[in-house]
């Protein structure tokens, strides 16, 4: 036993050093899986796409360094502006009404006077768990010229059928409807969580002071829900500028007739996975990221100014 004890004593400073090092390192080791994954699947692709955006890289063929040329071409590309315009149209058409509807639905479903609240919450949330592709297909079928339910109803009323999916204005409206149908339930759940965090005492105090339900909604609910609404607006804005599945299924990657439904997501996809222009597509992605960042900052600024 003695030699072992002596050996341990001799090694004691080293062991202490190891233990001290381990005490410092252990927390980092435990949190390292996240950072390793983030580096591999988060930061690396981001940096990679930034580098790629400076090259004319086509996937299989070696790409030449082109500097800022991809960005210059992008700023002259009429399809890019069309996709931005269409996305802005969809953003304005869907995000504000969606937030309003979600807030109203959440307020109603938060009320004690509504029966079967859980059933209604589930029903409103169901579209969120429906496949994006199915949503696109269903809306495509509803508004189909030859087989659509909407045209069948029109014809039953003696009205002529309409080519909904090829009309530039209606194409965007249908896209907005599909988004409202699918995402309002999601926003409603976020709003509901926000509403449930508002203390009931405030409403009771307001009631004692003679406030009506509408007044309580405007003067208590809305101001206290501002951070939630702001969060929802930012998330929805990011979602809209990354929109892909619904317009892709409904109108294809080219945005159909007159490119009326080409949005930034499908424009990016088209350049990367159809034309294999990964350099150009990366430039699109970075410009989009800048636009989304600017919009989010603007929303945050406006939100904080209103709060102040």
């Amino acid at each position, binding site marked *: 036993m003695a030699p072992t004890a002596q050996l341990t004593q001799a090694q004691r400073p080293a062991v202490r050093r190891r233990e001290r090092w381990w005490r410092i390192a252990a927390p980092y080791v435990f949190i390292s899986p996240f950072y390793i994954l983030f580096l591999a699947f988060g930061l*690396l692709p981001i940096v990679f796409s930034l*580098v*790629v955006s400076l090259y004319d890289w086509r996937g299989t063929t070696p790409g*030449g360094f082109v500097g800022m040329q991809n960005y210059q071409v992008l700023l002259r590309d009429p399809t890019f502006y069309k996709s931005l315009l269409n996305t802005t149209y969809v953003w304005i058409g869907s995000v504000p009404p969606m937030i309003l509807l979600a807030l109203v639905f959440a307020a109603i479903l938060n009320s004690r006077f509504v029966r079967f609240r859980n059933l209604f919450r589930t029903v409103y949330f169901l579209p969120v768990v429906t496949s994006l592709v199915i949503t696109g297909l269903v809306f495509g079928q509803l508004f189909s010229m030859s*087989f659509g339910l909407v045209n069948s109803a029109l014809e039953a009323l003696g009205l002529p059928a309409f080519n909904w999916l090829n009309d530039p204005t209606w194409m965007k409206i249908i896209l907005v409807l599909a988004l409202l149908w699918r995402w309002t339930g999601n926003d409603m759940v976020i709003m509901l969580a926000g509403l449930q965090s508002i203390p009931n005492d405030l409403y009771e105090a307001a009631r004692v002071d003679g406030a009506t339900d509408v007044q309580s909604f405007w003067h208590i609910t809305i101001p206290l829900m501002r951070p939630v609404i702001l969060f929802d607006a930012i998330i929805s804005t990011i979602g809209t500028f990354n929109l892909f599945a619904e317009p892709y299924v409904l109108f294809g990657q080219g945005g159909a007739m007159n490119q009326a439904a080409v949005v930034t997501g499908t424009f990016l996809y088209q350049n990367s*996975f159809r034309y294999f222009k990964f350099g150009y597509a990366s430039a699109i992605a970075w410009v989009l990221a800048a636009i989304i960042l600017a919009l989010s900052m603007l929303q945050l600024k406006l939100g904080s100014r209103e709060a102040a």
Partner: protein
Amino acid sequence: MVKRITRRQFLRLSAGATAGAVLAACGSEPAAPTVPTAPAAMGATAPAAGGATAPAAGGAIAPTAGGATAPTAAPAAASGESGTLTVWGFEGTYEGIESQVDAFTKQFPNVKVDIKKFGYDDTHTNLLNAIVAGTGAPDLVGIDVLRLTQYVDGLTDLSEQAKPYFDQFVPPIVSLGSYKGKFYGLATDSEPVGVFYRKDLWDQYSVQEEKIETWADLANASGQVHDASQGKVSLYAMNANDFNLFEVLAVEQGFPGYYFNKDDTQVIVDDPKMVEAVNALKPLWGAKGVLQNVNGGAYGDEMTAALKSGKVTAQIIGAAWYPSTLTQNMPELSGKWRLMRVPAVKKGGPRIGYQYPTVWVIPQQSTLKSSAWELAHMSLIGDGARRLYEKTKILPAYKPLLDELQTKSDDYFGGQKLVELSRAIAKDTPDVFFGTGFTEAQEIMGNHLQEILNGQKSAEDGLRAAAQEMREKLKKG
């Protein structure tokens, strides 16, 4: 001088940049430019396979052999391989391969065939992803020939293996499968374009095929059908952004590269001849009774429904695979359909057009290249080609089978010798080719064409704008 960089170099560079950002260390210098890939691997397989499938095997696959098409010379290289041979394909391509799996596995018991069926877009996207990732590519895959140039750096040069069979395929199949002196794939089909029309309806509304020689004649007949049917029937449907129509006009006007010149270096869409052709399209678009802008385009569900119901009487841009759609979706209309040549821009002008066959290619990543070639060979030649035709009605590219089929009349087309006419159209068509950036050029042309047809721009201005956009985006002259 332009500095070239490969995927691996990109990865290395990005990893270096990331490490630099995180560790404040120096990023790695990009390695010296390298040419991607695998001449060694190709060298390892090509000569052996080439020898295995040499003329002896070709000779064994005589036109009369029909079902007995298995190569007599056992491919030594292929028989030495073992494993699972993965095949990717979309509908209308894999059926020929499927028909040969039993015969193939009998010959090569060590190789198991796994056919994965994808949609058209998925097949192409998945192949690119696999090539870019450097792993996961199949051993054999059917792709649209118009996208061939997008993949060539990741594909095996099959010149040696395929050369003995070149004369067994109709033009322009061999030139379509070639790019910059290398050969990448043989096609399952040939794709001349014609007008498919309902003979019964044309008789009913007194439209005679013989009297339709030009696009203007077709436009004139549109009003006739509209009036005679009291507005219930359209002679044809047309989409303003239909670049397929432009492509037919380009070939008719003497541009076999459609949007590009012969060297694939210059954009030709603003050539005065094309301005003339697009001006000829305007009356076709504006004619009375045209069903405009059918959702999904000429080959979509809405169009199929319109043809099936008799609301539209003709598919004016029908490629050689279109009989497959007709026979599968409208068997009740057997005997009522006919095929005619597309009209000409001017009276007496060429009445031709050609679309995009499917080619079987072997990615460089494949470890079973010889076996993959054998399977492709069996499916493209002899019994495989016949079985594909019987199942899909898609016009074959294999000459001996065409020789046999062209003498036969087709009941679905009222006894018309469909193959004979299709082959004649293909024969009159010059050797077309699909240059780099073809799919993007199509999209650009579609966007500008609709502005021209909708009267937002003149043909000259619209085509000039299209040409300018193509030149900038595709980096051509």
